[in-house]
Every structure is written in C-alpha cells, then in structure tokens.
C-alpha cells in the first residue's frame, strides 16, 4: 500500500454481525413505526424540494411531483426525510469513531478520480431512476419488503443481482 497515507482506521465488523445488527434496526423500524427502512424516497423528496424552489409552477403541473410538493405542500416534512438525516448522522458518527471520515475518492486501481466521479454520477442516475420505477431501493424494497416476505421485493432483489452480475464483466476495468 505504498503511496497511501498511513491509516489508523479500524477494521470493519464481521459482515454477519453487521447483518444481524442491521436486521435488528430493521425489525425495530417495523416494530415501532410499522414500516421499514429506506433512502430513495427521501432522495426523491430532496430532488423535488430543490425543484420546488427553482420552478414551483412546474412542480404543480407535473402530477408525480405535485403529489410530493404541489401548492403549499412541503416535500421536506416527511418521515423518509427525517430518516435520511438520521442515516447521514449515523454514518458520520460511526465514521468518526472508526476514523474513516476523510475527503477522498475510493475507486478501482485502474480508474482515474475524474472517471470514477463520472461513472458514479451515471450509476447514481440509473439507480435513482430505477429506484423510483421499482417503488423503492435496495433498502426500501429489497431489505424491508424482503423481511416481510413480499413477492415483489424478492423478485426485485433477484433482478438487481442478475443485472449486476450480467454487466459485471463489461465493467470489470472499473473495479479490478
């Protein structure tokens, strides 16, 4: 690892322990609120919220957007947004405790920083679009729906892994 800054980061916890803890959080979310976890709905609300400042008339005209932020309706006052803030704070807290908070770009060994950003942007756009089409992301559909044995969520989960493995070879230079 020559050329890298000396790291004092702690090791990640056992993936199964992480999974068990994540399962516990997911269960508590269901037990207390009746709903699971999620991230993409909040992203949708942030996106609409920004648009609502820039072009409120447009938001009022497009049905899908008006449902979130039409007229006087605020896209921000929603459980998913509170959860998003919590997720950011939680990630930061664990990152600080484990000394992993650092401005850096993590990437495959053969990819430039700029290229990684560009691919992250494009991948993010695909993810965002796909998550709304599937009515949920990996957390809101796969994790939450999977835990309550929803057929659609399991089909969705299989689709993600199938497509990921199908294109992995094409994009192997990105990561290997």
């Amino acid at each position, binding site marked *: *690892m020559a050329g890298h800054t000396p790291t004092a*980061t702690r*090791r990640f916890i056992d*993936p*199964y322990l992480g*999974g068990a803890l*994540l399962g516990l*959080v*997911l269960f508590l979310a269901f037990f*207390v*609120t009746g*709903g*699971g976890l999620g*991230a*993409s709905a909040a*992203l*949708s609300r942030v*996106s609409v919220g920004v648009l609502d400042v820039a072009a409120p008339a447009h938001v009022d005209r497009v049905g*899908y957007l008006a449902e979130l932020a039409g007229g006087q309706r605020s896209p921000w006052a929603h*459980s998913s947004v*509170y959860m998003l803030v*919590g*997720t*950011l*704070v*939680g*990630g930061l*807290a664990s*990152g600080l405790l484990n000394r*992993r908070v*650092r401005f850096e770009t*993590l990437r495959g*060994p053969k990819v430039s920083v700029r290229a*990684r950003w560009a691919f*992250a*942007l*494009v*991948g993010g*756009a695909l*993810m*965002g*679009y796909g*998550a*709304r089409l599937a*009515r*949920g992301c*990996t*957390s809101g*559909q796969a994790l*939450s729906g999977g*835990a*309550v*044995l929803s*057929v659609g969520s399991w089909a*969705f989960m299989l689709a993600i892994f199938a497509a*990921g493995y199908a*294109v*992995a070879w094409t994009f*192997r230079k*990105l990561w290997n």
Partner: protein
Amino acid sequence: MAPLDLSTVGALPAALLFGLIGFGFGFVLEMTGFGDTRKLAAQFYFKDMTVLKTMFTAIVVAAVLIFAASSFGLLDLSRVWVNPTHLWPGIAGGLIMGVGFVVGGFCPGTSLVAVATGKLDGMAFVAGALVGVGLFGETVSQIQPFFLSGDLGRFTLPDWLGLPTGPVLVLVVAMALLLFVGAEVLERRNRNAAVADAPKARALPRFRRGGAAVLALVALLVAIHGQPDAATRLARNAKLGRLVAERGIFVDPAEVVALRKDLALHVEILDLRDESAFNLFHLARAGRVDERQLVERTFLRPLQEAEPNTVIFLVGQDEPQAFSAWRELRTRGVVNTYVIEGGMDHWLDRYPVPSCVATRAAGKSWSFRYATGESLPSAAPELAASRRFKVPCSDAPARDGSPKTTEHEIRWPDYPFTKHVKLQLKTLVKGGCG
C-alpha cells in the same frame, strides 16, 4: 400492541423517532463497510461477498423477529406495511439498478453513508441519483401503463406458495444459511484476488456458528407456534376487544338505512348466508360471500384498499355468523367494517315483508314462500318511493293460475338509533421508500 399509532405521538417525537432509526441504519452500514464502494463492487466479482452476507442476514434476522413478534402477540401484522407487489416495473427497476450498482458502485442507502464519511465518489453518486429520481418524476407520465402494470397488491411468499407463514420462514432461513456457506466457499477460492485496498472485516467464527443455530431454532419455534388466527388476533387487540364488548361494532338496521341515503358514503353490504337464503331475500345491492371465500386475496384486497368513505356491513341470518366474518376482516386490516345487529331476522322484524310472502314463527327465522331477491321494499327501506308496491301472493292464486295481486302500502317508522359508525382512516407508514 405494536406498531405504534404514529398519529398519536405528535409530529416532533415522530420525526425524532424516524431520525433515530435512520441513525441506527447509517451507523450499522458504516461499521460494516458499506461506505466503501470497493467493498460493495467486489460483490459482483465474487471477491468480497459482504453485500450478500450482510443483506441476507439482515433480512432473515428481521423476518424471524417480525414473525416471532406476531406469533407471540407483540406485533399486529395487519398494521405493518408490506411493500405491494408491482411485478413488472419492480423487475425492470431492479435490472436498471443492478447496472447502476456496478457502474456507480453504490445503492442509494450506502451512498448516503459514503457522503457522511466524506467520500467524493459517494457525493457524485448522490448527485446522479437526485438527477435520476428527478428524471423519473418528469417522465413517469409517458410510461404510466407500464408503471402500473403487474399490480398484485399485498402479496407475500406464503400467499404465492399457498403455505402457512411458518414453513416459508424456515425455508427462507435455510436458503440464506446455504447461501452463506456458498459465499464463504467462493471467497476462499478467490482469496488471492482480494480487492486491492478494500479493508477486510474482522471475522467472528464463533458468533457465526452460534448465530446461525439460534436463528434456525427461533424460526422453527415460530413455525411450530404458528401465526395467530382471527379469534386470537382479536383477543390480543385491547382496543377492538373493548369496542366489541361495548357492542360498538353492531349497527342498528335504522343506521344502515340512514347511511344508505348518504351520497358521500359508499355503503357495501356483504351477506354471509347461503345461496338459497340469499335468493329468497336480500338487501338491495348486497353481495353474497362465503366465509371461506372471505379471506381469499382476490376478495380481500379490494376491501383492504377501499376508499376511506367506504363502510362495509356484514349480515348473516343471525349475529354470530356475521361476527365471525367481521373478526376475519377487521383483524386483517379492513377498517370501517360493521355487523348488522341481530342479522337478517332482526332486519325483517324492523322492516317486515307482507305476511303473504313470508312469516316468522316464534323462535324461528323468517320463512319465505318464494324468492324475492331484492324486489321488496324491505330490501331498500331508504327509498320512500318504493313503499307503495304491488306484491303477488301465491297463497291465493286466481283460477287461471296466475298469482293474485294485492296492493300494499307500508310505512315504517323512523326508528331511533345510537350512531355506531365512525369513519376511520387506515394509516400505514409506507417505509422509507413509499
């Protein structure tokens, strides 16, 4: 019984609650290494199976806990949000996201953790995701038919397989454990090709074995103990139990008549009696349903998803029959459901038919001479115009064989009643992605 009714806790505590759950979510994701894109992407090259291991562990742990809580009466599943199945857009979205995962190196939840720990690639990803969801909002009207296709509603693996929840849970846990064994084998085989720079996790072999055993054991226990039936679910629901004890779910026929006049409401009447009784006499626009058919998905779903101004009345020959149906529906999350007090016999006592059509002997049910369906005014007492009517009476046929027709005029009093129907909104938290 859990879950909390969030409408009663106030806006700020609810917001804090969701924030706290999010905190746990973000904290655990970061601890497990989900803020590191290399660890995530390595999943697709069989080098580091953390994503699969963590995700499936989380799913089965949560599933076992959820169904254990329901099995032992701590959690009311009818008030738990189950992502409705929209099969085709779900699969299409999943395929797009699979590509996005490999190209972008994150999924939405993990990208947030990457942002929180200062990862610039995570920020680029979130920026892209914001564009993506925005783009979807702008274009969804073009693909509306597809977006709404494959709609199966609340459809679970047990529904699909036609098995009780317990065995399915055991199957899912067994499948996950097998998957983990496979993942370990794959990782060991690709050990030398371990992803450059991606930090490894600390392995806890003892915890793994013990955890797997506990999980399998609890799943088996839940399967043996089973999920509660309608009577048990009702017994565990203090609020509903009180309502039943106070007879708040039993509605006077006069209230049903009054509500049928209300244009702002959609009144639905479900008749539990057998087909012959139904043909002899039933309330206007009533539908007949067998108790067995009542809990089938195709029948249940429209009731569960009914508009909030829908009131459902159940009627049997007597009260217990309708009450048992009420118990099934209400504990499956069908709100605004009531039982017509005293059943059809009581209804006919209040709004009787001419004695040449039907009579009631003491201690017995009404007995009809021929099928009247919903043709008699008693089937729709709310229609004042129908009170004057002609009815053929078969007990005194004319010589040519055609039934003798007598004209009746009936004027029922406006019976006083205590209002029991209170419209209730069904509130379900839709989860973070709703």
